[in-house]
């Protein structure tokens, strides 16, 4: 038991939690924007994957991690654009398209990777780390929490930013209306289609950055299907967060810890089989869902396409 309380274990656990949690945070925040606007974005897993591959390729050929994140985000946004056109413009079933996008991106990125890298399986160099002055010197948590790639800090800033945005600007108001009563938004003269499309594109960008982070920072390489359900966990986070970004942060931290357990335990010398530990995050998700089932609140117009004049 004392093995668990060593500095090595705790540092490893917290550090791993952040690394694992950031993609969940970005996916969760992104999905929250979509869901607020009334779009059930099941395809977010596909957006993350494509962002992961695009970001990996960009960094691999340019040696720039910043470019990697940017391209990753744009990649996710590209996939989101497909969803926006099909589901929001044409009103196709959001669930069917979401499944299609997820399967399609799984296949496409695996295919592209096969033709490009399967012989070599290249790795990236270590991603840049920004050590926060002063804070990163604190024992244990300093190295675990404050010595990360800048995207991590940006993620946390996004939580604050989005909270403020939702409350103080028309972004929040329009999203809320689009998700609760789109007819009211339409009657007020704001395009429901455009509001939802922008929401989905924003989700795609954030998911893409999250995927790029997983590939470039988390793993240092791209492996087909590497997101492993992160996008879906993001959806769960958004569902439970009831519109508050800060809850997504807490949820992402929680799941990040459970995902980081394996490595941390190995560091501590405890040998629990990988597969058992791999069950942990999903078991936790189910547990949380069971306990908080009655508290999950979803916008009334979720998943329903808006057609003007539809009674």
């Amino acid at each position: 038991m004392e093995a668990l309380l060593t500095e090595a274990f705790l540092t490893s656990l917290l550090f791993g939690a952040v690394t694992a949690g950031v993609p969940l945070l970005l996916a969760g925040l992104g999905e929250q924007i979509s869901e607020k606007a009334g779009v059930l974005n099941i395809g977010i897993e596909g957006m993350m994957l494509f962002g992961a591959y695009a970001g990996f390729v960009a960094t691999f050929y340019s040696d720039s991690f910043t470019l990697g994140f940017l391209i990753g985000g744009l990649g996710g946004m590209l996939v989101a654009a497909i969803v926006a056109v099909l589901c929001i413009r044409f009103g196709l079933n959001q669930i069917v398209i979401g499944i299609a996008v997820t399967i399609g991106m799984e296949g496409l990125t695996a295919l592209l990777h096969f033709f490009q890298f399967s012989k070599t399986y290249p790795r990236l160099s270590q991603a840049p780390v920004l050590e926060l002055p002063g804070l990163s010197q604190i024992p244990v948590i300093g190295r675990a929490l404050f010595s990360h790639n800048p995207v991590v800090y940006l993620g946390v800033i996004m939580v604050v930013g989005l909270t403020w945005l939702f409350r103080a600007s028309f972004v929040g108001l329009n999203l809320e209306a689009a998700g609760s009563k789109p007819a009211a938004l339409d009657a007020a003269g704001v395009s429901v289609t455009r509001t939802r499309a922008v929401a989905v594109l924003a989700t795609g960008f954030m998911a893409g950055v999250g995927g790029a982070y997983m590939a470039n920072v988390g793993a240092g390489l791209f492996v087909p299907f590497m997101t492993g359900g992160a996008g879906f966990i993001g959806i769960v986070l958004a569902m439970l967060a009831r519109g508050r970004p800060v809850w997504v942060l807490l949820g992402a931290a929680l799941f990040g810890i459970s995902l980081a357990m394996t490595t941390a335990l190995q560091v501590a010398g405890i040998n629990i089989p990988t597969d058992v530990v791999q069950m942990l995050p999903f078991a936790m998700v189910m547990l949380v869902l069971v306990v908080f089932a009655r508290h999950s609140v979803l916008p009334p117009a979720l998943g329903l396409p808006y057609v003007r004049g539809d009674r």
Partner: protein
Amino acid sequence: MSVETEAEVGGGSVSGQVAKEIQAATVRVLVPVLLALVMGGIVLLLLGKDPLAYYGYVVKRGLFSWGGLQETFTRMAPLLLIAAGLIVAFRAGIWNLGGDGQFLLAAVITAALGPALIGLLPRALTLIACMIVSTLVAAAWSLVPAILKARYGVNEIITSLMMSFLGTSFANVLVKLFFRDPGTTVPQTRNLPVEDRLPRIFDTTIHSGVLIALAVVILVHLMMTRTAFGLKLQVVGANPGAAVHAGLNVGWLTIATFALSAGLIGLGGSVEILGVWGTVRADWNPAFGLLVVPLVFLARFNGYAVIGFTLFFSALMIGGESAARRVGVPQHYVLVLVALLLIFLALVEYLDHLRRRRLKA
């Protein structure tokens, strides 16, 4: 997506009407398939592969070679059972996306139980026992999402997907830790010898599980269209408000649907082990669960139509597996095709819907 409904309004003679409907139906089915194949072909071109060579090889191997054709039929067994499970769920408006977990768990249970029982019971009883137990296990695995939906209205897409990930990891744990065959280097369950598996049909390598699957699909179709239970499921799927209004016990029907759906998919897993593999290797996951989704939609949830579509998809998979080695196009391509098929299906449905609206004017 629209459910198969009865004949609709229209002018003109009855036979003219029927002919028009058949024509429309054919278009609705063929166009998405063709578009998907063409679009996928373009992707192959961009990757530097010859799509015609690929498709040609797939068809030759999957349908026109005796060995391949047998494999195609064999592959239909799990696909048909999954299709049956999805028809039940989707007709009731329930998105059971946890098929992979249900499939795998049932397969592992069968793989563990089979070798254990074969020493004690005759083959027929062993096979039946394995199938029943696995079906029940898979059905039980759907209980949590089912109850969460029935009682609290929690979206079952997310819960069934999570249970699928959980089930897949759990199945691996079972294989590697509990049911591991100590005699092998690669982690897997104890092997069920070929002679103890499902009997072959006549002289072929096709096992009788395919016949079981065919019968099940037809039974499911008859159940949906000719029984009160099937109609109740359809009411719940088409209009949950009306289901309550009509006095149906929606909660119980939800749970029953989930259990039936998961059980059928689990039966698919069991049959695949009892017919083909005899064992489950660690990290094995054919992931058929989502691939069957477009087939079920293409068939408009009709059991007979689904058999046809499954045949062609099965040929595609068998041909594609071989093509991965011979033509250099990995099996991942099939995922892309499935995605394209779903998208074009949805688009064609939408255009068809617009056409009908304009016709009424």
